[in-house]
């Protein structure tokens, strides 16, 4: 399940887009050196990306539920290609899905890359899979590692969608209920995906020539993940906790009882004109969106007969523009 543009606010979308792009840029720089040394990785990434894209279209039945799920693929890509290459590949898969199938959206692409790529490739792969799987020679350890990592990846990805939706505030679905809807089914999907992934890895290892998972790039274990999480927390969450108290300058002015002096200060022509320009051009006055919802969450959107008539007229104008732009049919 992918995050959609319609449920995302620009603040949340931009935060996750920035985080995901940061991870992708870092991954691209790290891969440049690897690609120079091992040009086979380019072909492998491309073809495995196509494989995961296609495999996501194949549903697997979930025993006992009558439902079905599909492979996410992020963990499998991280195991086969390494965390950075896996992230690049899953990001490309999500981009193609957003464009061709509107599965997710352009604004939500960053959030989807984070939910399905960053969490699995940069966080769970080094911290969970690599820790549990060890050198990959033990089938039991690989199976346990794959099942646990895929399950956590699916659950955290689903929780990410719920959290992003709640943070955006566009839907009124309460977060606890949303999580209660998403987590159980994704727990089961993650378990099955983990078993399928473990089975695929085991089957690959048993074939002639076997396969060797890409080694974890040095220094990647958790460091970048920590930075990205820190950036997200700072930008997206801590801003909610931003103090409403006056900043240092305002506090100082108040302490000096100089506020009234500021208000009484003579305002010249240049000051007035500058204030007018600022009022007209400021997109986020006082760092708030205009027409922000009042704190009680209720707003009167100005529904009226004039509004309905205007809406109909707007649609009619849109249709008129479409007719004007349309080319006349050519007579053969």
């Amino acid at each position, binding site marked *: 399940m992918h995050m959609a543009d319609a449920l995302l606010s620009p603040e949340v979308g931009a935060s996750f887009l920035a985080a995901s792009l940061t991870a992708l840029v870092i991954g691209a720089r790290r891969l440049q050196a690897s690609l120079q040394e091992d040009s086979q990785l380019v072909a492998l990434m491309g073809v495995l990306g196509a494989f995961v894209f296609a495999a996501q279209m*194949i549903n697997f039945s979930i025993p006992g539920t009558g439902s*079905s799920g599909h*492979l996410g693929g992020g963990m499998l890509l991280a195991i086969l290609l390494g965390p950075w290459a896996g992230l690049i590949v899953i990001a*490309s898969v999500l981009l193609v899905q*957003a464009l061709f*199938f509107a599965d997710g959206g352009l604004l939500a692409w960053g959030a989807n890359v984070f939910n399905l790529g960053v969490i699995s490739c940069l966080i769970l792969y080094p911290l969970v899979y690599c820790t549990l799987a060890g050198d990959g020679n033990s089938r039991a350890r690989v199976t346990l590692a794959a099942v646990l990592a895929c399950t956590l990846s699916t659950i955290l990805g689903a929780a990410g969608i719920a959290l992003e939706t709640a943070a955006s505030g566009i839907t009124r679905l309460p977060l606890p209920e949303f999580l209660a809807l998403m987590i159980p089914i994704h727990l089961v999907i993650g378990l099955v995906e983990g078993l399928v992934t473990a089975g695929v890895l085991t089957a690959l290892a048993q074939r002639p020539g076997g396969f060797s998972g890409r080694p974890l790039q040095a220094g990647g274990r958790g460091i970048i993940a920590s930075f990205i999480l820190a950036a997200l927390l700072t930008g997206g969450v801590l801003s909610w906790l931003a103090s409403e108290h006056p900043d240092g300058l305002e506090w100082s002015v108040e302490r000096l009882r100089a506020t009234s002096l500021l208000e009484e200060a003579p305002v010249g022509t240049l000051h007035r004109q500058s204030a007018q320009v600022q009022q007209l051009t400021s997109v986020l006055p006082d760092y708030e969106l205009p027409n922000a919802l009042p704190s009680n969450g209720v707003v009167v*959107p100005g529904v009226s007969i004039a509004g309905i008539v205007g809406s109909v007229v*707007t649609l009619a104008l*849109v249709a008129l523009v479409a007719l004007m732009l349309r080319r006349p049919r050519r007579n053969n």
Partner: protein
Amino acid sequence: MTGLAHALSAIRRADSLASRPTRAAAIDARAKLLATLWVVGVLASFPSYEVARLLPLALFPVVLLVMGEVPLSWLCGRLLLALPFVLMVGALNPWLDPDPLPSPWGGAIAAGWFSLASILLRGLIAVSSALLLLATTGIIRISYAMSCLGLPAVLVNQVLFLYRYLFVVGEELARTVQAWQLRGAGKPRRGVPPHQLKLLLASVLTRTFQRAMRIHQAMLARGFDGKMRLARLPRWRWRDTGFLLFWIIFPLLARQVDIPLMLGRLLTGA
């Protein structure tokens, strides 16, 4: 035809739409991409109860639809597949947000109906904008535009590679699944059982690895040295500047001014 085969067919159809010489196709891919991102971003910035004020932004997908000569039936078919998740999440709003708001025909309705309508309208405009961007530009030119706008070359090349081999690998997987279905006995199943799926995937994945090695050898034979090189897009023209400027200014205007209400007041004298 399996779901995968349907998906590949849909991708081919989108590609064929983008390859036609239409007026929308003639506009630079970078201009269309930036305009689409901007429109979607402004759309997302509206408060959650706004419905009528979103309507002017519907002009963007309509213009792309007409100038790109994209069949409306194709767009509607894609929208029907893409919108159910959005509808599912917003469907409970009228019950979860029961605060009454005055309706123009008297009485009051739950505020949740407004937010549901807003969610649907946002979804319609955003999804159709993205689909029409693809149908009028094509994945290859969109990828080149993204590289011009700063996306890492590794990611852009990955998208191009994925697209190039999607049909090859996808058709192989579709044939494998179809063969499994034709050999299956008993009642139709909902999805492939996990223990059989892992065998199917492992089989195709092994052939995928072998194919990747053959592709790599072919690339080396053609002089590939590991560096990513991308082609250039056609020259930027004044009409591209005009297109982009219009679709930056118009959404901003729609964001700041309640255009439908203004028109309604003009006509009704309210």
